[in-house]
Structures are given as structure tokens and as C-alpha cells.
């Protein structure tokens, strides 16, 4: 389990390269978690989750690094509002032309969070799983959690991203194609012994769920056989926050998605926070009629 640390991250002060031999180093107590955020299908909310979860964890005192592993279509910088502060990327770090500390972009308002930007899309031509492992090994000593924003698909880009992860969050929406693709990805994660694998169900529309015009929460969790880490409603504020480059979880946002992302961050740290039943959210007369229509008669 991951414990929040109230202290601020001192990154990018240089790190002593060697630990004095007489100091006992407890590896397990502080072993950072490397978490892959993946989905198979594109456009289901991986990058949005990575940005919001990163900010939420950081504000809860967890030293968090977010790594944009979507080298083809990088966007994490934009969602975090850090696009104008990028000097170096993962590419220069790997080439040895800059130090990791120079490439990591620290978030001004949430200094516990830092981004390692993706390099040029041409990196895809030569990047190997070992390269990703190397990057993550460099990042790990300075953080409690490393979130890896995976690209869509199940090809090399995904495999590179997965190579450096010890656990995973699979994002899906309650739609047949997204769930099918998520299932493919879960199969690949299982082969790689990545665990735990937890599920985030995104873009849930309570009204459609009540009307049974959308896969239900338990339908998806049953089919994929994964524990549910969080449930994020369809929320217009997600788009507004993307426009501004300010994740919803920044500045104590109160919209439904903001609350959901913050709860995901807390559950990730081992807190028990009950998951709301989206079909019970609206308790008005219309909702009661809808509920009545769903009662089993035989």
C-alpha cells in the first residue's frame, strides 16, 4: 500500500549517486509503484485520467511522476497545461544529452507532480521495451508513484509502455467496442504478470443506464472480471478543463468527474470509499418511474 507523504518533492535537486554503505535501505517500504494507464481503444479517457489522477495524488501528498508513453500522439503535456514549459523530453534523456532532472517538468501549482514529456514521434521507430524500463528506473528513486499514459492499441507502443509497469489501470467506457478492446489488453497484462489490474469505467450516463440503453456497471465488471477502482460520469467540465489546460482536480473542483478522480486517487492509496450506484443518483419522480419500469415482473 502506498502512503501519502505530506512533504513536498525536492525534485530537481541533484540526487546523491551512492548511499553510504552503513545506512540500511528498506526497499519494500518505499518501493515506488509504476502504474500503466491503458485501454486498447483510443479516446476512452486514458490521458484525461492520467492528468487528473496525477494532480489528485500530488495534492494528497504523493510524489507523482506522469510519463507520456504515447509517443505518436502526445497530449498529456497539453492536458496538464505544461506544453510551453517543455525543454527536453524522454528522447534526450535516453540519448544521454540531458539529465532526467532537466527533462522533467514540475507543475507550478502542484509541485509534487512532474511530467516526463514524450519525444519526437520518430522515436517509435527505434524505441524498445528496455528503453522504457531504463527511463522508469531513472524516475523511480524520486517518486512514490509513476503513472504511465499508454498509447491506444496493443502493438509495440503499448508493449513498450507495459514493459516498465508493475500494475495497471484499465480504462473503458460502457460500450461494446471499448469493453472488447479492454478485454484484449487485460489478456496481454495477464501474460506479463502485471497486477493488480483495476478498472475505471468512464463516461457513464446514469440516465441511459437506468433505461438499460447502456451496459450496466456490473455488466462490465462481470465480463472483464476486474475490481472497480472508479466510476466517472460523462461530464462537460472535462472538456472545459481540457480547453484551459487545468485538470479538474486542480483547485478543488467540485464537478462530478473531479470528485470521481479524487476518489480514485484515494482508493489507489488503500482507502475504502464506497462507489456510487449511477442508477440511484437521481431520486426525483422521473427516476422513480424509471426504477419502477425496471422492476422484474416475471
Amino acid at each position, binding site marked *: 500500500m502506498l502512503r501519502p507523504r505530506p512533504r513536498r518533492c525536492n525534485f530537481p535537486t541533484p540526487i546523491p549517486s551512492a548511499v553510504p554503505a552503513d545506512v540500511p535501505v528498506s526497499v519494500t517500504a518505499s518501493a515506488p509503484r509504476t502504474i500503466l494507464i491503458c485501454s486498447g481503444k483510443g479516446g476512452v479517457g486514458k490521458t484525461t485520467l492520467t492528468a487528473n489522477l496525477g494532480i489528485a495524488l500530488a495534492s494528497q501528498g504523493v510524489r507523482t511522476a506522469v510519463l507520456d508513453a504515447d509517443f505518436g500522439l502526445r497530449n498529456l503535456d497539453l492536458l496538464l497545461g505544461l506544453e510551453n514549459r517543455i525543454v527536453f523530453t524522454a528522447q534526450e534523456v535516453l540519448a544521454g544529452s540531458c539529465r532526467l532532472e532537466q527533462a522533467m517538468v514540475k507543475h507550478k501549482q502542484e509541485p509534487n507532480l512532474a511530467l516526463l514529456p514524450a519525444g519526437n514521434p520518430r522515436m517509435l521507430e527505434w524505441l524498445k521495451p528496455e528503453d522504457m524500463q531504463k527511463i522508469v528506473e531513472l524516475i523511480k528513486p524520486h517518486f512514490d508513484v509513476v503513472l504511465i499514459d499508454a498509447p491506444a492499441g496493443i502493438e509495440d507502443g503499448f508493449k513498450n509502455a507495459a514493459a516498465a509497469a508493475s500494475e495497471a489501470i484499465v480504462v473503458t467506457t460502457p*460500450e*461494446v467496442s471499448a*469493453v*472488447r478492446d479492454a*478485454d*484484449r489488453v*487485460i*489478456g496481454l497484462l*495477464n501474460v506479463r504478470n502485471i497486477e493488480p489490474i483495476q478498472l475505471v469505467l468512464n463516461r457513464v450516463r446514469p440516465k441511459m*443506464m437506468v*433505461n*438499460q*440503453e*447502456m*451496459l*450496466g456497471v456490473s*455488466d462490465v465488471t462481470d*465480463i*472483464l*472480471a476486474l475490481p472497480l477502482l472508479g466510476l466517472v460520469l460523462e461530464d462537460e467540465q472535462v472538456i472545459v478543463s481540457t480547453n484551459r489546460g487545468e485538470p479538474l482536480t486542480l483547485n478543488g473542483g467540485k464537478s462530478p468527474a473531479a470528485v470521481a478522480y479524487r476518489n480514485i486517487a484515494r482508493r489507489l492509496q488503500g482507502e475504502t470509499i464506497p462507489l456510487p450506484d449511477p442508477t440511484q443518483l437521481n431520486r426525483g419522480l422521473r427516476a422513480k418511474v424509471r426504477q*419502477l*419500469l*425496471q*422492476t*422484474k*415482473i*416475471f
Partner: protein
Amino acid sequence: MTLRDLIDRLLGRQQASGPTAKHRLQLVLAHDRSDLNPELLQRMRKEILEVVSKYVELDLEGGDVSLETEERTTALVANLPIRRVKDTALQTLASGES
């Protein structure tokens, strides 16, 4: 059946799409997960029927060999209604041959 299904049926409306989505997903995932292509499954089905038919007379109309999936494990499920055990099968057993 829910109250809504009943009303939908009485009014001749289409059923809600959620349960249809679930059903279709379960079928397609059973195949995805096992990596068995439909052609291979068809051949297996035929051979299984041949073997079983040596011993019992099957009701081929009511039978089915299909893939089902639950908790991420896929099972090959054969549902083969038996009309009667074949005499020849009993005879081989009686004469001690196997």
C-alpha cells in the same frame, strides 16, 4: 422480464439495447479469448459429434457445442441430448473389448 419489457412488447417497440450489448459481448469475447476461429470450432464440433455418436444416438436438432466464458476462463460446452444408448456400444462393453 421487466415491466418496461412488457410495455415495449405490447406496444411493439424494440427491447432496450443494454442487455443485447451484454449478450453480444459475451459471445464475441468467448471467441476472442480462446483464439479459436469459427472454422476450427466447426470442425471440432463435427468430430465430437462423430465420437459421441459411436456410443449413443443423439438428438442432433437439440444439440449444441459452443464456447462460453465466465471469470475470464473459456469453456467448451457440449449440450448433446441423448435419444438412446446404441446396442452396439453395449455389446462391445459386454464382450470385454475396449
